[in-house]
């Protein structure tokens, strides 16, 4: 009996190899789309905020999943390469923050503009560069997007202005790109990102002032991952309500671990700017699993328990996966295929 069971199980597990599972997948009927509830955003100087429900199509869901998983795998690969000393210097990883880069991209057009600071690999990918070009740049090869002359913090693409190493300097630059958008009269917006640490830089307030004064189509985005290097937000800012720090600029606080929340908030903010009302501020509450950079283990100023808790309860990829599986937008096996695909040869996949 046991032998027979063993044989049967072998056959069955053999049957669930790729060809069979593909047949299984094809024969299932997935929903085309599903409606999800998302967290209501805290608002500052706004009467209304983004909607609290959103529709996710199967196609979009798979696309976002694939993109987030690609960013995750790419960052983990960079971690490995850094430890092998094939990547040198600075390497700031964004695993944990995938919903931010993928969600923001989902809310804007490719003709819009984006600028960020040094934790930029995810954005470099979502803005259109291939993982191959990114890893080649990180490893100092001439096939890199900056021919190996820039490195981790200085990667550029069409309508993506880096990758900036000086904390806070990218914010006036972003306001300037927004000025060019308005000057050219093309209805484009500029997403100008900075971290919770940079939020205390004086030049950011100078940029807020001029952007509001001149009604620049600039979406200021504070990616708040709770730590500026090793300094927690409570130890750095007299006010940790980053979405209110724009004062006269309306703001919203967004759940940065939920890609749908980020997408809806971005759509809302972009529509606001495009209507000519001037700048708006978004705070994305998110979390990074790695330390500040590869030289930082990331556990001297925060607890392993905290990291573990976020990983198990709020991981952005897991959240999307659960939603999609539970509403029959995709199957577990299908998503697992994507996981495997993305882990094998990250260098092959351009953004799809």
């Amino acid at each position, binding site marked *: 009996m046991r032998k027979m069971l063993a044989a049967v199980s072998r056959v069955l597990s053999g049957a669930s190899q790729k060809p069979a599972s593909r047949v299984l997948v094809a024969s299932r009927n997935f929903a085309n789309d599903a409606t999800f509830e998302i967290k209501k955003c805290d608002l500052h100087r706004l009467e209304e905020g983004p909607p609290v429900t959103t529709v996710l199509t199967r196609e979009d869901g798979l696309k976002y999943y694939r993109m987030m998983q690609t960013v995750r795998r790419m960052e983990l690969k960079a971690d490995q390469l850094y430890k092998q000393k094939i990547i040198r210097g600075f390497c700031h990883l964004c695993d944990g923050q995938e919903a931010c880069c993928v969600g923001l991209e989902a809310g804007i057009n490719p003709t819009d*503009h984006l*600028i960020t600071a040094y934790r930029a690999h995810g954005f470099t990918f979502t803005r259109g560069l291939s993982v191959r070009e990114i890893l080649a740049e990180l490893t100092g090869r001439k096939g*890199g*997007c*900056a*021919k*190996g*002359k*820039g490195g981790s913090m*200085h990667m*550029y693409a069409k309508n993506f*202005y*880096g990758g*900036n*190493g*000086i904390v806070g*300097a990218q*914010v*006036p*630059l*972003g*306001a*300037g*790109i*927004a*000025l*060019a*958008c308005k*000057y*050219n009269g093309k209805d484009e917006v*500029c997403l100008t990102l900075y971290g919770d640490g940079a939020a205390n830089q*004086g*030049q950011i307030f*100078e*940029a807020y*002032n*001029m952007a509001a*004064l*001149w009604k620049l189509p600039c979406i200021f985005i504070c990616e708040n991952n709770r730590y500026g290097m090793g300094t927690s937000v409570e130890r750095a800012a007299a006010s940790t309500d980053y979405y209110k720090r724009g004062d006269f600029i309306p703001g919203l606080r967004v759940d940065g671990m939920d890609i749908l929340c980020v997408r809806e908030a971005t759509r809302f903010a972009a529509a606001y700017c495009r209507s000519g009302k001037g700048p708006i501020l978004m705070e994305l509450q998110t979390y990074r699993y790695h330390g500040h950079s590869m030289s930082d283990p990331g556990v001297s100023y925060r607890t392993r328990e905290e990291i573990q808790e976020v990983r198990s309860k709020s991981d952005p990829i897991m959240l999307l996966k659960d939603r999609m599986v539970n509403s029959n937008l995709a199957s577990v096996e299908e998503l697992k295929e994507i996981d495997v695909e993305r882990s094998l040869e990250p260098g092959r996949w351009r953004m799809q």
Partner: protein
Amino acid sequence: MAAVSGLVRRPLRQVSGLLKRRFHRTAPAALQVTVRDAINQGMDEELERDEKVFLLGEEVAQYDGAYKVSRGLWKKYGDKRIIDTPISEMGFAGIAVGAAMAGLRPICEFMTFNFSMQAIDQVINSAAKTYYMSGGLQSVPIVFRGPNGASAGVAAQHSQCFAAWYGHCPGLKVVSPWNSEDAKGLIKSAIRDNNPVVVLENELMYGVPFEFPPEAQSKDFLVPIGKAKIERQGTHITVVSHSRPVGHCLEAAAVLSKEGVECEVINMRTIRPMDMETIEASVMKTNHLVTVEGGWPQFGVGAEICARIMEGPAFNFLDAPAVRVTGADVPMPYAKILEDNSIPQVKDIIFAIKKTLNI
């Protein structure tokens, strides 16, 4: 009959001869243009030529410019192209650089270059280095301009010369006009250049008129960046300078000429990239070198020229060590007598030349 027709013909020839005569005209008076008006013209022409060019800075619009350099431009071009900024150097310099990255061609004015220190990170890290860091993908066609160096009685925090600081950085072009022709030609070249260009003007020169040659009156008149000009030919000594001190060098040369010493005065026009070819050729001819600048001596423009002379072919032609005439190594004092003695004067230049020539 032939005799009669001959009589008729002659007067006709005489009449046509009369008609051929033109009125005698005197040559037109030489056109005098101040440095201020030259810069104004240059910017006006470039604003007209290219829609993407715009000017921003403190007081550039409704005030007509803190030193009236942008007089009339706001009235002509309006709010979109001539933008008054709040007092936020780091912010508006960054905004200007961002606009340049996105394809516009901003002219970013610093009221004086002393205030550019607040924004120097944007000039160097965001503007100068970007083309290189991006592997040639992202250019930054911006001009930073404003008065540089000593003025009159404005004391230490308002008198620093930034030629050496900006001249130090790869990725930047740095120009330093002396007269009106320089000013107009260089600002136009700077605006048309796709690289970040720092234009170091001089407040004391703004009101000084110079003769404007006819070619400088054309809308396409450009002075090439990276080329020095020999203002005065000479055989005994090469005197190299930039900005206002060029005038002092020419004065010194005039005095020395009476004593039989002929100085070759070179107006650098560009700090970076430096035109060493012109300087070397001159030193190889005269065998003596004096550099003159308003900035501090340590790590200055003159120091760089001397180092490069030593590294190049001209070293073997020197009959005496090169001498630098510079601003005094102190923060600029206020009292006139102290201030006068803190910048190179004509007598200091003459003294240095005579010392080099051992006369």
